[in-house]
């Protein structure tokens, strides 16, 4: 009965999957090499015209700035994504919405932090990611406590289910916001992971792998960043997403860690993460742990394109495109600031 199952799969997202595979082709290794040789942003623009990005900068007057490039790159991604989202239905639509939720979380946190620092809404809005915009988003500034935030605004938004764990009557402050962000993310990752698992098939195979890594990365980063802050170990343990490979033993160990070496020791027990910690350091020439994580993420996402008829490609497509945009922006920044020494430390996409 392979034919009929093939048909069903094709009907739900076959066309879009093909589209995404087409969108994925952006910049080759060769192109990166050429890009790094550019002297000005105009050169960069000229060269990008020859790649999959085409004429996306053609209507921009010179002189070009990095922010314009950034904006246009993002706009292109958003247009492509929205096109796919508008053609998706049923499960695929839910899946694509899940991708959007992470941007919504980022946007909310950005707005709350901004308001705490007495920034104007008009100043903050352009910084929000267009994929994460929803109706009630801009009203989050009126909330002063998390309960307020939930009851007044977020209860109608798609993020409501993730918010259950962080409702409290405390005022919003910097520490609180970080905790909210991480709790939200934790709930989001767990929900996403469970959804994919329940979906089953190749989607589960690919996505659980990626999301598990994402969860572990967050746990590790949270732990490392918590050193020297007021965050207690118990509170910290509550922020770990419980879906990764580290769960449950690794997370237990992580929650006890006091220093970087301890984190490293825990992670090295896992075959996947050991190579990431090897050779990292803060010396010039060394890659940071963050870069290593990014590289691993890219590998996972590229691998997701090896399988057909699964939703992982959509997630990977968004993540890879984002990485590619980051790379272009990195190169553009290096060119604009005449800081060529570090121009090669982008993260290549194989």
């Amino acid at each position: 009965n392979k034919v009929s199952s093939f048909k069903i799969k094709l009907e739900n997202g076959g066309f879009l999957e093909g589209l995404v595979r087409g969108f994925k082709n952006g910049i080759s290794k060769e192109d990166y090499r050429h890009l790094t040789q550019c002297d000005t942003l105009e050169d960069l623009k000229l060269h990008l015209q020859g790649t999959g990005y085409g004429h996306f900068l053609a209507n921009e007057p010179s002189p070009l700035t990095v922010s314009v490039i950034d904006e246009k790159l993002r706009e292109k991604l958003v247009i492509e994504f929205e096109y796919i989202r508008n053609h998706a239905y049923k499960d695929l639509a839910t899946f694509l919405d899940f991708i959007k939720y992470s941007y919504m979380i980022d946007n909310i946190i950005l707005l709350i932090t901004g308001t705490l620092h007495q920034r104007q809404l008009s100043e903050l809005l352009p910084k929000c990611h267009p994929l994460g915009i929803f109706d009630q988003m801009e009203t989050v500034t009126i909330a002063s406590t998390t309960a307020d935030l939930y009851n007044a605004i977020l209860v109608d938004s798609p993020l409501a289910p993730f918010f259950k764990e962080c409702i409290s009557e405390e005022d919003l402050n910097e520490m609180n916001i970080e905790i909210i962000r991480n709790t939200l993310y934790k709930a989001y990752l767990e929900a996403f992971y469970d959804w994919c698992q329940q979906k089953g098939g190749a989607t589960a195979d690919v996505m659980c792998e990626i999301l598990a890594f994402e969860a572990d990365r967050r746990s590790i980063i949270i732990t490392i960043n918590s050193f020297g802050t007021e965050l207690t170990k118990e509170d910290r343990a509550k922020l770990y997403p419980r879906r990764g490979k580290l769960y449950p033993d690794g997370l237990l160990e992580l929650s006890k860690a006091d220093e970087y070496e301890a984190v490293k020791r825990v992670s090295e027990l896992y075959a996947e993460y050991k190579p990431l910690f090897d050779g990292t350091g803060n010396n010039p020439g060394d890659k940071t742990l963050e870069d290593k994580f990014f590289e691993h993420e890219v590998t996972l996402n590229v691998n997701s394109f090896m399988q057909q008829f699964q939703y992982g490609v959509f997630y990977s497509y968004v993540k890879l495109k984002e990485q590619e945009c980051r790379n272009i922006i990195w190169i553009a920044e290096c060119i604009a600031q005449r800081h060529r020494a570090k121009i090669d430390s982008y993260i290549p996409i194989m």
Partner: protein
Amino acid sequence: MGSLFRSEEMCLAQLYLQSEAAFACVSELGELGLAQFRDLNPDVNAFQRKFVNEVRRCDDMERKLRFLEKEVKKDNLAIDDTGENPPAPLPREMIDMENKFDKLETEMKSVNSNQEALKKNFLELTELKHILRKTQQFFEQAALYQQDQETHVPQQYDDETPLIASEFSRSFNRFGFVAGVLMRDKISAFERVIWRACRGNVFLRYTEIEAELEDPHTGDKVNKYVFIVFFQGDQLKSRIKKICTGFRATLYPCPETPQERREIALGVMTRIEDLQTVLNQTADHRRMVLSQVALNIRVWLIKVRKIKAIYHTLNLFNKCLIAECWCPVVDIDRIQLALRRGTELSGSSVPSIMQQMQTKENPPTYNQTDKFTSGFQAIIDAFGVSNYREVNPAPFTIITFPFLFAVMFGDMGHGLLMFLFALYLVLKENRYMKHKPEDEIFKMMFDGRYLILLMGLFSIYTGFLYNECFSRSINIFGTSWNVRAMNFTDNDVFLATNPVVTLDPNKPGVFRGYPYFYGIDPIWQSAENKITVQNSYKMKNAVLMGFAQMIFGLSLAFCNRRHFKDKLTLYCELLPQLLFLCALIGYLCMCILYKWSVWTVAQSNTAPSLLIGLIDMYMLTDPKSNNRVPLYTGQYQVQIFLVIVTVLCVPWMFLSKPYILYKRSKQKKGVQHNRLWYTCLDSQSDDDVAILHHENNDANYGKQEPESLLIIMLISQFDMSEVIIYQAIHTIEFCLSCISHTASYLRLWALSLAHSELSEVLWSMVMHTGLATSGTSGAILSFFVFWFFSSLTVSILLVMEGLSAFLHAIRLHWVEFQSKFYKGEGYIFSPFSFTLI
């Protein structure tokens, strides 16, 4: 003008251009469109080339023009298209153009921003107007309600009147309120958030603005709602205001008393009127600027694109502006003339030099076509672009393609329809050339209009031969058969019992002795065995035509071999191939013709079967030994000889060429070893001699140096196994294809049969029923049946059948015909030309 038989002779030329004249020269060459420039710095990045700044400036100009074009289109102004083709302006004019476009752009932008500001103002005022009007309604309703309640005591609360409303209406003076305008799609979310955030302590009313408003920034029409929120206390007020900003609602001050509201409303109305006049004036100004732009924008765009193309081409040149290009040998004079014109135009005193170069590279294939031949050339190029100077099958295709098509599509009526359709396209050609048709399918038909024209013409011709017009026969010259000569009487028992009679041509007078003057006798139309007879004819015809075309293909291969002076292949491959084909299929064809012309009706009972004869030939059996009548005397001996020839041809094809190549390479190796050894000796013993030798070589062979010679020798080492495998494949392929290709030509018969049967069915099932009914009802029925019949004829017989016959004709050309001689591994000549951009 060159002929289509072979592609144009090309040469590689080097151009030495003066830096000041280069632009003008390339511009002239672009107008001419006869030179294909080669990229001389392929490993240089796009942004590291010489004229990258100019290209960028052109890009910028193009961007400005695109902006202006967009504005023109937004105002629905028609862009002036005079069809004029301006020459590329000189580089010094570029600055003027840049300035002009820059000025226009800034002017346009300032007009736009002005207009936007005005529109925004206008929008605000209209919104305020609507707010005043709508809130008036709210307040009036409230007042009415109050009166209502005062009269209806004791009051009753039903579900539809909310508690708050009634409380509010009693004492609404104590409440503060905020009024504003909000996008329609946000209103429900807004209502919910406001309810939750204020814990239900507010009262919200909203209503839709009926008129659509214009968004000043994008110019889109949007629908909005007027809302009014009542609340108590300052804290709530600030909270509501925050929510309003969050939803991007615009708030307007709204006075509390009706009098003040009326006054403001009046003020707003007058201001709106003032603004309207100002807006009209700006729109007029904008229109004026844009109409100027619309007049010129097409010419500007062409100019800018030309400049850009020229700089792109200049970027292909090397640093000292030396260019290499392929060009047809016959057009060298025109190119040189263009160069001279360019030099004069730029005012440079030093002429540009053009020099031919020797090269080992394969030149591009350039077939000059006109509107008639381009369709046929396209069919050939779709299979593969011919090698340089190889025989081009296109000129033969002009006749053979429509002919083979018509053999499969033979019907006068259908051919005539097709011909008329193509004739219409040809006659209206100028109109369609100017306004390129949008529809892709129609465009394809239009491009092949001459092909269709010939196809229709040939179909009429074969239709005459088949004597078929919409499957009916026409009796023009009078049939050769005579039924009366069979001597049936009026009340013959035989006639009464048998619905079918057999006409015996052996009876005197039944067949008049010579056939119908042209084509097939119309009497077959009513014969029972029509299909059987026609099948025999058509099948044999198909074999004859197939053989003729394949032999023709082989003779073209002879032309190729002689042109490329490849005697080895000619004698070791082509000759045995020709013999093989003639002995195998040619003999069969001969038998067919012989039997047709020599054997008569009287002998038809004893006539030998060709098929059995062919089988006997390869079984090497004498027809006499099986008591069969021989086709002609001495048949056995001739056949034995032909079989021997056929069998001998196979090893000839297979072995002779590899053997000779092997011999040659052995000889060459000996000579090369000797020469190499001497060169080494030379350089060791006396350096001067070596240098002299070196220089000599340089002078003689141009670029070819001794070192490179050595390398070439090493590379072209002879690989015996490869040659043998290659030859084996070719031999097997040819031998098999002789049979299979001949069989493949039988599709001519099969499709022709299908076509005539289908049209027959359509006639007898549809048209015949209409015509068979008599009286008034028959006339009406015929009328409707005709529509049905004609639409089916066009859709099934003309379009579908025509398409299938077309595809089969293409296949016969690509596979059966071209495989005999055509390599098709060249690449097409794509000159730098302004008409293509």
